[in-house]
Structures are given as C-alpha cells and as structure tokens.
C-alpha cells in the first residue's frame, strides 16, 4: 500500500476531503463535477430504469428478444448506458430457470439500470454464499424457494460484463399498462433474489 499509516488511520471523512482538495488544486476535478455525479446517482439513476426495460420486454415480444440477445443495445436504446454498464447481459427467469447475479470479488453491479448496489450485495456473506449455495441462500436469506427441478444459474460478474435478470411476469397482471407494470418490478427481482408475485402466494395461505 502506498498510503502512509497516518493516512490509513485517519477518519475517512478527512481522507475524502483531502483527496478532493488536492485533486481540485491540480485541476483534475471540480466540486461541480463531483456534485453532478452524486446528484445523478441520487436522483436519476436507479432501478426504475431497469423496471421500465422489464415492463417493455413483458409487453413487446420484439423488445424482449432484443434485450436478451443484445442487452447493451436494447438498454442503450432507452438511454440506459455508460460507465459500469459497458456491456450488459440480460437473462430471463422462466419456470425452468432462475438466474441470480453476484460479484464474488467486489461489488460490480449494473449501475445504469439498477443504480448503486444495496449493502448486502456488497457484503462478504452474500458474495461467498450466493455463488456456492444459491438455493439455500435464496431460501434462508431471501425467502425465495426455488424448487429442485428449476435450474439456478449464478452469474458471477468477474470481468467487463454486467448482468441483470429479466424476472418472470407474475400472474394477475394481464390487464396492466406498461407503466403500471414498471411500478411492480423491484430492484431485488432484477438481481434475482426476489420473485415477483410471491406475495400473492403468501396471501392465499
């Protein structure tokens, strides 16, 4: 490590400020630019982007095919691109296959369509458990019971591609508009740790 012990022991607040201070001084950054990035991720970029793509895929078969075949282009078409989402792979959950994403090494996540990852996604327990014991982890930690005859595919974000799950459209949504459908698609369902429509099953019990 290059940082001195003084720096690594300092309050991260002071480290962040020192970095900003020096980088601005050197003309490599501006407060405006930094604030703009933060603001964009606080307000614009989030799972509603992915939800819109999902709703569109559910209602437009051609778009669904495009999304699955060339996720980058199909999402770019909606304006969701750039940065971490350099290349996107979108995988569809069906009655035979359940997909789930993880980054075992750090925290890579499809920012343009899902925003920044939740804390648990970045945590060591998730990163190690989901790749090795996905079925058990989904059941015990996320209340998602995937039956043994359904194949679980774990996508480890190990390089330049980012992943998103296209969840199965739940029953009872037949009459809904694209906008209404987008409202029911959650970030967790696009990670693969939630199954939409499960709560209806709960209601029946």
């Amino acid at each position, binding site marked *: 490590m290059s940082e001195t012990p003084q720096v690594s022991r300092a309050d991260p607040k002071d480290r962040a400020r020192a970095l900003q201070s*020096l980088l*601005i001084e050197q003309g490599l*950054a501006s407060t405006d630019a930094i604030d703009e990035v933060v603001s964009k991720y606080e307000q614009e970029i989030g799972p509603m982007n992915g939800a819109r793509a999902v709703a569109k895929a559910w209602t437009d078969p051609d778009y669904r095919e495009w999304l699955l075949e060339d996720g980058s282009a199909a999402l770019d078409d909606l304006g969701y691109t750039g940065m971490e989402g350099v290349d996107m792979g979108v995988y569809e959950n069906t009655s035979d296959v359940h997909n789930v994403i993880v980054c075992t090494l750090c925290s890579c996540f499809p920012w343009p369509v899902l925003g920044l990852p939740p804390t648990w996604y970045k945590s060591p327990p998730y990163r190690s458990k989901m790749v090795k014991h996905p079925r058990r982890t989904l059941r015990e930690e996320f209340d998602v019971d995937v039956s043994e005859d359904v194949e679980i595919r774990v996508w480890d974000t190990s390089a330049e591609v980012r992943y998103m799950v296209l969840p199965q459209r739940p029953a009872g949504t037949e009459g809904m508009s694209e906008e209404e459908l987008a409202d029911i698609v959650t970030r967790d369902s696009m990670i693969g740790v939630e199954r939409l429509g499960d709560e209806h099953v709960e209601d029946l019990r």
Partner: protein
Amino acid sequence: MTDEVDRTIEEIKDAVGPPQDGDRLVFDAPWQARAFGLVVTLYRQGLFEWNEFQSRLIEQVQVDAFEDQEEDPESVYYRQWIAAFEQLLADKELLDDVALEERTLEFAHGERDASEFVVGEEGGHGHTH
C-alpha cells in the same frame, strides 16, 4: 475476530436498517458520496480505465476480509473504496504521498474544512478556516 463470511445476510441488512431500497438514501454520509463522486469524476475524464480502479478495490476487499464487527458495512466499503483510489492515484503518479498525508492531517486537525468546496469561494486552499 469472526470471519466476516459467517455473518448472515440478515445481519448485514439489520446493520444498515430498513428499508433497503426506494426510500433509503443512496449514500449514508457525505464523505461516502464524496468518495464515490471523486472516483467517477476522474474516471469520466479518462484518467484511468474503470477496471484499473476495480482491480485495486478487489485488492482492498481481500485485504480487509476480517473486519471489526462494529463498523457499519457501508463505512467499511467506502473506506476500501478510498484506499483503492489512493493506491490508484499513487500508481498513476497523480498524487504525492507526502502531499496526501499533509493535506489529510490538515483536515484532521481542523486547519481546513469542507467550506473550501463551497462553490463561489475561489482560492479556498491557502486560506485557513
């Protein structure tokens, strides 16, 4: 020290408090937003490839595998983020170790504060507050 992996995902969720999406703020603290904004801003200017930062983040995550259970996960994460960024800047010779240490201590000792970042205050560095 317990292996961080042994914690359940539920414990992690509890550590940060509900809710985990929608209503929750994207950043827990201004310094975390600042750290995030800094790295992304410099990346956008083409000063490094994203995977160059990512490689160092991966290293930090590995080094940090055994953690003080008291520290909240988001703080842990963004501390790793900052350390990775500092390493990257050093490797790219964009930042000098000595300058970084001095500046960090100035903030730590209250000789400088975040008001120097307020837009409109030209030449904030060089003034003491």
